[in-house]
């Protein structure tokens, strides 16, 4: 049976780190806070690996089906009988898998940051924020109660806000962190309402009970829920759709993706941890967690999930081809890959062979965490060396950054889906699932995978080949002011602390594909055999390789071919370069429409009605007191007359009128 103490310690250790470093870091652990945070997380990672081993190989299976366990549960706040917010631990294949992913990637980032963030003014604060983030993400993953999940969901949002705004003296970072917080918070309102609807329909907040009640077609709850409709859709459909809006906001799905590229203002390791590998997949995890509800009860919503994922995947891929900021390219590629995971869920059905999409999505989540974290950390190493985010300042770096070069290449091959790297296997499964269920999405996905290979290798060739590299001395001379990396003078590739995570993650990105993932994670807990279709994989691999060679032709040597192409596609290129003007549309809607239609009237109402009432009270009081202040004259005899008149009036009143 699962050991509640061990599992509870996995999130609690980072929390301890957060409290310790947050409260005392600046005074006592100025130098050692990195080591402390990393050590705590190492322990937590080991415990997570131990839990995963125990679960998958020792006690998890009963009759060939992976079971759900609730080793610990405590009622935190009871609303009414049966409806309560519980703090608990829920152990099942996806939560265990996510435990490993989150703690491992977080550990890599912790180690990497030892080198990358060295000498930062707010070093302890950085590590305490990382601890808070890891705690909340692990708590989200383990949540056995949908409201507990929501609490941790918001905590994740807060820590993301703190980390994006880490360089708070930089206006763009401040703007970015506010944007991220507001956009995701806006989506979370949908999530909250969705939770309320779902829990109202099912009469519980407990996740396993909720899923069980909402998926058995003859239960009382589902009958009443389907009976009540709003705007032509049943209450359940609305609930599921709203929950998905929350997930889409956190996972940066179109059209709520605008915060993700801006979130790259945070330190690069943070981007690797939060905006690539862990937090942004929270939305995917949420859909996967409620997958039975989505697929059995509200298949219409699942179709929306699929299409939103597919559209996000392709739009992000197109935009990624035009961006010049290395981290923004990676951000859009993240969005595109998460789109993959989403539509993989969208084309899946519950249980059996049809559940391939579910397994594929989780598998892609797993492998993507590896190679995307690796890509970001490599980008961090490059930025650390060049002191610039812009691809124009890079080129020919393969001589100076050999380890980074190789690991980056592995990650690129993995994300491009070249066998035998990890991305190949997971992407193959996703494409297969799409092929079996929805041809339109399949074609989009296939095209996107070609684009993915192209833009990743565009990045690779521009950074590591292209023009001859300037010498390190020259590099350090033209360091950009205000650029993120504020490291020292000319230096090599970065220390052991920065290279170790790269190598470990590269091993993961190269080898993770060979894990027989269907054995462990499937929609109904039964082992799902993932067959390998050689013929089927020809098309995507060929497309991927074509993309790579196109990128090579364009970018390996310095030339103007790409500029010519951009010029020939003028309008489209410009639109893509400006991210299809989605930011501008948002600005227009918020500034022009919302501001004029809602903001201004509200301001008018506030100024004239609310303030007016307050001012009126004040003015009235003043006028009255001005009028009656003559009464207090200081003449005793006048007072006596008032008194006498009063007594006479009262006496008359009582004697003649009120008798």
């Amino acid at each position: 049976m699962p050991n509640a103490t061990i599992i509870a310690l996995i999130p609690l250790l980072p929390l301890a780190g957060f409290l310790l470093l947050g409260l005392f870091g600046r005074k006592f652990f100025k130098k050692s806070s990195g080591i402390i945070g990393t050590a705590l997380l190492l322990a937590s990672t080991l415990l997570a690996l131990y839990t995963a081993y125990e679960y998958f190989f020792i006690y998890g299976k009963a009759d060939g089906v992976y079971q759900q366990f609730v080793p610990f549960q405590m009622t935190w706040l009871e609303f009414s009988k049966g409806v309560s917010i519980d703090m608990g631990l829920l152990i099942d294949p996806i939560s265990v898998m996510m435990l490993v992913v989150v703690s491992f990637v977080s550990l890599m980032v912790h180690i990497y940051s030892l080198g990358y963030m060295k000498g930062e003014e707010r070093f302890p604060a950085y590590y305490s924020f990382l601890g808070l983030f890891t705690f909340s993400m692990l708590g989200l993953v383990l949540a056995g109660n949908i409201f507990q999940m929501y609490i941790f969901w918001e905590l994740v949002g807060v820590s993301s806000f703190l980390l994006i705004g880490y360089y708070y003296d930089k206006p763009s970072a401040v703007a970015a962190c506010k944007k991220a917080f507001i956009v995701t918070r806006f989506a979370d309102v949908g999530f909250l309402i969705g939770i309320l609807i779902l829990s109202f329909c099912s009469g519980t907040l407990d996740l396993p009970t909720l899923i069980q009640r909402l998926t058995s077609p003859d239960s009382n709850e589902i009958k009443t829920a389907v009976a009540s409709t709003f705007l032509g859709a049943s209450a359940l459909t609305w609930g599921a759709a709203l929950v998905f809006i929350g997930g889409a906001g956190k996972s940066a799905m179109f059209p709520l993706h605008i915060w993700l590229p801006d979130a790259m203002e945070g330190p690069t390791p943070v981007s690797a941890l939060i905006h690539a590998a862990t937090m942004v997949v929270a939305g995917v995890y949420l859909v996967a967690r409620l997958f039975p509800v989505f697929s059995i009860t509200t298949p219409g919503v699942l179709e929306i999930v699929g299409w939103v994922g597919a559209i996000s995947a392709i739009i992000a891929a197109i935009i990624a081809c035009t961006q010049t900021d290395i981290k923004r390219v990676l951000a859009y590629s993240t969005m595109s890959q998460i789109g993959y995971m989403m539509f993989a869920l969208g084309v899946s059905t519950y249980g059996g062979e049809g559940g391939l999409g579910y397994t594929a999505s989780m598998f892609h989540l797993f492998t993507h965490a590896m190679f995307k974290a690796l890509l970001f950390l490599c980008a961090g190493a490059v930025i650390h060396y060049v002191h610039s985010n812009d691809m124009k300042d890079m080129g020919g770096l393969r001589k100076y950054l050999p380890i980074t070069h190789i690991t980056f290449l592995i990650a690129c091959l993995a994300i491009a889906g070249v066998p035998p790297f990890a991305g190949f296997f997971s992407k193959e499964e996703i494409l297969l699932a799409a092929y079996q269920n929805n041809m339109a999405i399949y074609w989009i996905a296939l095209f996107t995978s070609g684009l993915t290979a192209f833009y990743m290798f565009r990045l690779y060739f521009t950074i590591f080949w292209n023009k001859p590299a300037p010498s390190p001395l020259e590099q350090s001379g033209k360091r950009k002011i205000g650029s993120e990396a504020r490291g020292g003078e000319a230096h090599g590739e970065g220390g052991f602390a920065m290279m170790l995570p790269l190598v470990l993650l590269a091993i993961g990105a190269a080898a993770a594909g060979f894990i027989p993932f269907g054995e462990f994670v499937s929609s109904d807990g039964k082992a799902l055999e993932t067959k390998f279709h050689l013929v089927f994989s020809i098309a995507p691999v060929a497309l991927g390789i074509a993309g790579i060679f196109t990128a090579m032709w364009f970018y390996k040597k310095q030339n103007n071919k790409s500029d010519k192409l951009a010029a020939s596609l003028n309008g489209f290129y410009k639109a893509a370069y400006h991210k299809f003007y989605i930011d501008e549309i948002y600005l227009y809607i918020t500034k022009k429409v919302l501001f004029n239609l809602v903001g201004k009237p509200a301001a008018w109402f506030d100024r004239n009605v609310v303030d007016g009432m307050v001012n009126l009270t004040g003015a009235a009081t003043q006028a009255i007191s001005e009028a009656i202040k003559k009464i207090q004259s200081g003449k005793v005899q006048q007072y006596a007359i008032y008194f006498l008149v009063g007594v006479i009036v009262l006496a008359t009143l009582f004697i003649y009128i009120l008798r």
Partner: protein
Amino acid sequence: MMEPGLNHFLFISAALFFIGVYGFLTRRNLITMLMSIELILNSVNLNFIAFNKYLWPGKMDGLFFTLFIIAIAAAEAAVAIAIIINLYRSHQSIDVENAEDLKY
């Protein structure tokens, strides 16, 4: 010779009361005002005694009230005279119009 009835007492009491009120409102000298107040109090006392005697002859409540009022009047006179003496010390006058600035 006619026995005095309740109405006689009430008449005298009312007359005393209004003489007192008139004195209080018209005199400027604080001592005179204090004396007027004594008149008002005594008119009340007279009322109490009269009602007690004619309406509830077996009871003593009116007498007790009267005794209380006499006691309080004595105390009040002491306090008032103390105030008047202080006022005289600071203003060199016991005219009520000079005491107007006490409101500040």
